[in-house]
């Protein structure tokens, strides 16, 4: 047979079978690249840092007009102003409390429903279609209805966030439970595990990576929910701050809100990563061998 196909390395060799063998060379590296943690971290922060520097430079040199995007200095002084009166801490705490309560309720419901639909055919038949329809309804469309039911108090805010957070949790848990190795589940059934015990000791631990992924998305969605919920009937909270910035046309507050949201997102991400490391210790040890 003649050698007429290019190898993976891309070297095209068209030689007759009787011809000489190609020269020997070290095998091209196809393994995983492992960067040193310090370099990896530097690469991670380089893009946000570059954006920050560009903003700083653009505002300082006057290339970005202040009514388009306020400079970092003004935003910092707005931050200082809010921090010195203690409002900032109050706002973040108030929002965190609402978000935590809403996420707890919403994710709890999503987890139970997703596990039920993923585990049993009956559960899937009873739950899935309804929740797919519910998922198609934007949670913001529920705002008027919820206000007429709950008023504009805390219940309304928590309920809205719960509804928003439940959707990704349901979808990911369902998917995660469905993709657990069926052979392992079969074996566990053979050892007499059924129903809730099977779910708690085999299926949910195996689906834990999906659950944590869902938690990450649910938390981000809850930030969106906060803006909608705190626009009405709130006197504190970062959603309220957004409303204030809009009402008084304060560009420094607008930018500050965005930065606070970005920072909260980062903190959520870090927290979930830490949780992943603790809760799924087996994942770091998977190697292709």
């Amino acid at each position: 047979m003649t050698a007429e196909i290019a190898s993976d390395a891309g070297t095209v060799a068209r030689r007759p079978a009787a011809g000489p063998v190609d020269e020997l060379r070290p095998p091209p590296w196809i393994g995983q690249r492992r960067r040193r943690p310090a370099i990896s971290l530097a690469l991670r922060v380089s893009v946000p840092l570059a954006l920050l520097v560009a903003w700083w430079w653009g505002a300082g040199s006057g290339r970005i007009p202040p009514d388009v995007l306020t400079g970092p200095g003004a935003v910092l002084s707005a931050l200082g102003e809010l921090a010195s009166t203690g409002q900032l801490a109050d706002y973040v705490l108030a929002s965190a409390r609402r978000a935590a309560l809403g996420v707890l309720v919403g994710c709890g419901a999503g987890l139970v429903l997703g596990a039920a639909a993923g585990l049993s055919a009956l559960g899937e038949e009873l739950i899935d279609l309804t929740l797919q329809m519910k998922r198609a309804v934007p949670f913001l469309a529920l705002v008027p209805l919820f206000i007429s039911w709950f008023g504009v108090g805390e219940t309304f805010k928590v309920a809205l966030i719960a509804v928003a957070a439940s959707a990704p949790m349901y979808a990911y848990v369902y998917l995660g439970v469905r993709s657990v190795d069926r052979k392992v589940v079969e074996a566990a059934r053979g050892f007499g595990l059924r129903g809730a015990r099977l779910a708690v000791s085999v299926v949910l631990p195996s689906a834990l990576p999906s659950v944590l992924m869902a938690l990450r998305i649910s938390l981000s969605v809850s930030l969106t929910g906060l803006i909608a919920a705190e626009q009405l009937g709130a006197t504190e909270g970062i959603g309220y701050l957004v409303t204030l910035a809009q009402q008084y046309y304060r560009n420094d507050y607008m930018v500050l809100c965005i930065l606070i949201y970005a920072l909260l997102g980062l903190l959520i991400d870090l927290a979930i990563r830490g949780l992943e490391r603790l809760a799924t210790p087996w994942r770091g040890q998977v190697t292709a061998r």
Partner: protein
Amino acid sequence: MTRDEREVAVRVRGLRKAFGARTVLDGIDLEVRRGEFFALLGPSGTGKTTLLRLLAGLERPDAGTVLTAPRVTTVYQEPRLVVARRVLANVTLGLPRSTRGKGGRALAEVGLGGRERAWPATLSGGEAQRVALARALVRDPQVLLLDEPFAALDALTRLQAQDLVAELCARHRPAVVLVTHDVDEAVRLADRVAVLDDGAFVVDRAIDLPRPRGASSAASDPAVLEHRRELLARLGVAPPSGQASVPSDRVALPSGQADLTSDRGVIA
């Protein structure tokens, strides 16, 4: 360069590889010639698979040189097929569309002609492994790496697969490096068998038996039994006296690799 020099397809010199504090390969020298079938035996954890992964470019050596001919393909213990692509697409994975005919011929060669449009999930273990073999052979490898490719097959399928590999390697003449736990398999297939222990080769011997080596004829051949007895002794498995080298007691070394490779591959 001499004629002899050009015949070499794999050259390893002074190879050292450590994982943390554990040195798995320490000063390995190896040359495999074009068309030579080289089998590597050794207890679990001696670095057989690591050596193969170094040849495939999946690990980096800590010291020494690893050189191979440019076209290297691998068949792993599991088929490692893409479940979302049909059998023929798996065989010609990454190759231009014009090679589809060649892929079909490779499938026919491994006895799977007509199964081009089957999904990998519908294949039996032996069939899936034959697809993996076709995928490796369709690239005309100068070096074929076999990482315990028969370990997950049942005994009968394994014998058939060994015959198939022997036949295809005799036809295509790649340099073959086979990693295995199975002494009988090594003696049956290889031109040369080495035993790896404690990071170095402790045996490196030619198996100059006539081919084809059928399963039944090999079992009663005194030369085969002699090779087998000596290799087993080197591996620390001494046959009980009186029933020395009874062919039916296949000895496969305890497998430690299995716990790292689930049949689902890596959970990413």
